[in-house]
């Protein structure tokens, strides 16, 4: 579901094809609802090792994140700090992950590549970046940890299912047409880098 509240675009899971199609690279949104954390090892288990994800994330969101969590199964868990991790590490496996899980929205840090853009176009998903290193502000958007699976992978790599409210800002970096904001930025940066190196070659 998509709403506009006080000029902010707020998405609430589950997300439909229409919710996702309406998003354009560069848009800024916030999210409410169910998301799971999953990074390197979760991707490896689901794609390379062919295991079933022990959570239904069809139409929901995945966050590339490894939180700091306190507590236990008995007393419950609390998120102390959480934030997005480098998404590019998952690039090699993300196409298959999106295909297998039906996830609609991926939250991470920095750019992803062509294969993820292809999956976004083919299966109707988006990749968003969230300003990273803001782990306390972000933790305060987490209402509760609903469950944890694959804790044998360690705290950072485990699959945490969390409920969030107002998580963001999320900047759409790859939209469902496959447009990749960072690829466009990179082209600008590379051109400016070459200009600077040309200048430096005269000075160094």
């Amino acid at each position, binding site marked *: 579901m998509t709403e506009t509240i006080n000029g902010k675009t707020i998405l609430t899971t589950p997300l439909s094809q229409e919710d996702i199609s309406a998003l354009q690279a560069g848009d800024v949104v916030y999210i409410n609802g169910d998301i799971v954390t999953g990074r390197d090892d979760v991707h490896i288990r689901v794609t390379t090792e062919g295991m079933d994800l022990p959570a239904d994330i069809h139409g929901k969101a995945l966050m590339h*994140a*490894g*939180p*700091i969590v*306190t507590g236990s199964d008995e007393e419950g868990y*609390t998120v*102390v*700090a*959480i*934030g997005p*991790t*480098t*998404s*590019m*590490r998952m690039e090699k496996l993300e196409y298959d992950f999106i295909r297998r899980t039906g996830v609609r929205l991926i939250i991470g*840090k*920095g*750019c992803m590549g062509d294969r993820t853009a292809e999956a976004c176009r083919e299966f109707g998903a988006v990749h968003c*970046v969230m*300003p*990273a*290193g*803001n*782990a*306390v*502000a*972000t*933790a*305060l958007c987490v209402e509760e940890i609903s469950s944890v699976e694959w804790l044998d*992978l*360690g*705290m*950072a*790599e485990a699959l945490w299912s969390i409920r969030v409210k107002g998580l963001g*800002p999320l*900047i759409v970096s790859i939209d469902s047409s496959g447009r990749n*904001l*960072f690829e466009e*930025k*990179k082209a*600008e*940066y*590379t051109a*400016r*880098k070459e*200009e*600077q*190196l040309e*200048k*430096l*070659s005269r*000075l*160094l």
Partner: protein
Amino acid sequence: MTLEDKKNRLTDIMASFIGYTAVHLPDDVVLKLKELREAENDPAALSIYDMMFENMRLASELGRPSCQDTGLVQFRIECGSRFPLIHQLKDILHDAVVKATAETPLRPNAVEPFDEFNTGDNTGTGAPAFFWDIIPDDDSCRICTYLAGGGCSLPGQAMVLMPGDGYEGAARFVMERITSYCLNACPPLLVGVGIAGSIETAALLSKQALLRPVGSHNPNEKAAEMEKLLEDSINAVGIGPQGLGGSSSVLGVNIEYSVRHTATIGVAVSFGCWTHRRGQIVFDSDLNFVTGTHTGFTYEKAEAKGAGTK
């Protein structure tokens, strides 16, 4: 104080200090981030800076690590040969890391290669990392702490250039990293460059450069000039906070060097994310201390606060 008392006191202070550096950024980094924010014109970049300052405030207020990736703990140590705990220092810092991991809490990040398990307490084979210098005929101990996060460790690179590549080649080597991998490494970054004769000496110097204060300059005028040229050039690329564009790109560029072989220019680059968790604390032989990075740190206060989460 008995030797055992001294050992316990140093372990406690270092555990508190490591926890404190996970929560509070060093004074020089905060100052530089303020400068960059003031010079920023891009509205999206400004809102990212605002979020960063809001997060710093919340981290201090709630006593929680400002970034969930509290890194691998590294120590650069300049230890006087007569410092009373020189023989115990390695064990003390090991125990301090275990204690800080449990009490702050820090995220357990240390994974044993091949056996592929997380040790759970941020120690393990070669962890924490120690980079030592022994200072002859001195009884103090200067410890730099660094929480090396994964995101900004990823773009690190070293290679050995040929003399014909020159300093221009070294500049290209650094700049290529900036416009590729560094977009993901939480800019504005601190850039540490090491120049030396071979790959490992350059790599160690690049980390040493990263542990120098933001805004400091290499004492060699020509090296300082290269720092300035690189800083201006990288800023002109304008990758902005989080790589989404903005008026600047870096907190600064620090260069450290040792001699190069007549036939080589070893060059390495290490990066620090904007949440650059570096600390420096200096002990005298009675374990009185001063910190060069975190004026807000007091041992008693840290103890009273319990350094835990609220």
